[in-house]
């Protein structure tokens, strides 16, 4: 797993995503866009991840998350993968947000942290024992976190 600074800046974001609010707060509180189509960013993700993981990869599914103050996504809400896809997370936030991070856990223990770093991307191999959570965004700051999550196979 690695973090690649400024990876998102290598391609334009098409945007125009349709956001909907996730309604089950015992699992997460966030907005999600499921209709993400970002071919240029997908190309960059595939190239960077293939090089980093030394695997031949192709783009799979993608979605975007937007977390406002008071939002979060808990680990038990995350999908568990029986195989080993590569997850690339682009931080598309307008500015850094203190304390907002993506935590990757193996059997519950955090083994990798992607702190707020606009423009950067994290590349992590998922698997049956790996879960991920997006940490709580404090109401003490006016800030929004936007992350584009891509799965590569």
């Amino acid at each position, binding site marked *: 797993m690695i973090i690649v600074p400024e990876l998102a800046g290598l391609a334009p974001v098409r945007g125009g995503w349709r956001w909907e609010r996730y309604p089950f707060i*015992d699992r997460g509180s966030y907005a999600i866009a499921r209709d993400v189509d970002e071919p240029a960013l997908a190309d960059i993700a595939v190239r960077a991840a293939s090089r980093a993981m030394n695997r031949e990869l192709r783009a799979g599914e993608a979605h975007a998350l937007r977390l406002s103050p008071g939002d979060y996504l808990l680990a038990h809400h995350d999908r568990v993968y029986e195989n080993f896809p590569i997850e690339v997370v682009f931080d598309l936030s307008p500015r850094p947000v203190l304390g907002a991070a993506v935590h990757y856990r193996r059997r519950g223990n955090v083994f990798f942290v992607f702190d707020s770093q606009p423009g950067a991307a994290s590349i992590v191999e998922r698997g049956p024992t790996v879960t991920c*959570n997006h940490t*709580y965004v404090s109401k003490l700051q006016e800030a929004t976190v936007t992350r584009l999550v891509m799965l590569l196979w």
Partner: protein
Amino acid sequence: MWRADAEQLAEQWRAALPFPHVVIDDVVAQADLDAMMAVLDEEPVQPAISDIFAFEATTPEPTTPAFRELRESFARDLAPVFSQAFGRPVSRVDMRAYAYRPGHYLLPHTDHQAGLGRVYAYAYYLPAQPAVFPAGRSESGPLLLGGELELYRCRSDGGELVDIASARRIVPRPNRLVVFEVGDHSLHQVREVLGGLRISLAGWFYP
């Protein structure tokens, strides 16, 4: 030391929404409250952080005899009352002290876990330390900003909670005890503390 009336509580418990709970104010005398604060001063707290919470807490088992005795007095005085008032017999309690500083929170969850035997959850609020207010803002406001206990109405579908809506917010007023039934639907959270220091004792009653 801990005062509660079973008859009054039974009525409040039955009428409470979104799930059975009671709010008991002035549950200990002022002199006892002062003594309790002195006991807590001796009990160390450590930061505790997960995906669902951020706060400071004492260890699961008290480290001083005085805090252990505080826990035992709580069970001795209140377990018989709650058993009678709420209908499910309890005898034992655990107790930790919690400190929520600005930015601390406990996200929505039910407390219910199979095999743990939790019957009733409780939180007892102690005097808050004042918030540091932004320049220009009146200092005559509340000592604590945020930190309310929020209860949710919800139902289950296929083993998952659905139709979740906020139903009640309980202010953590000093010397207030909140008790609620632990079950699949006892969804609640501690809202983020935005100013001040929120101090509480909390835990569960067991058979």
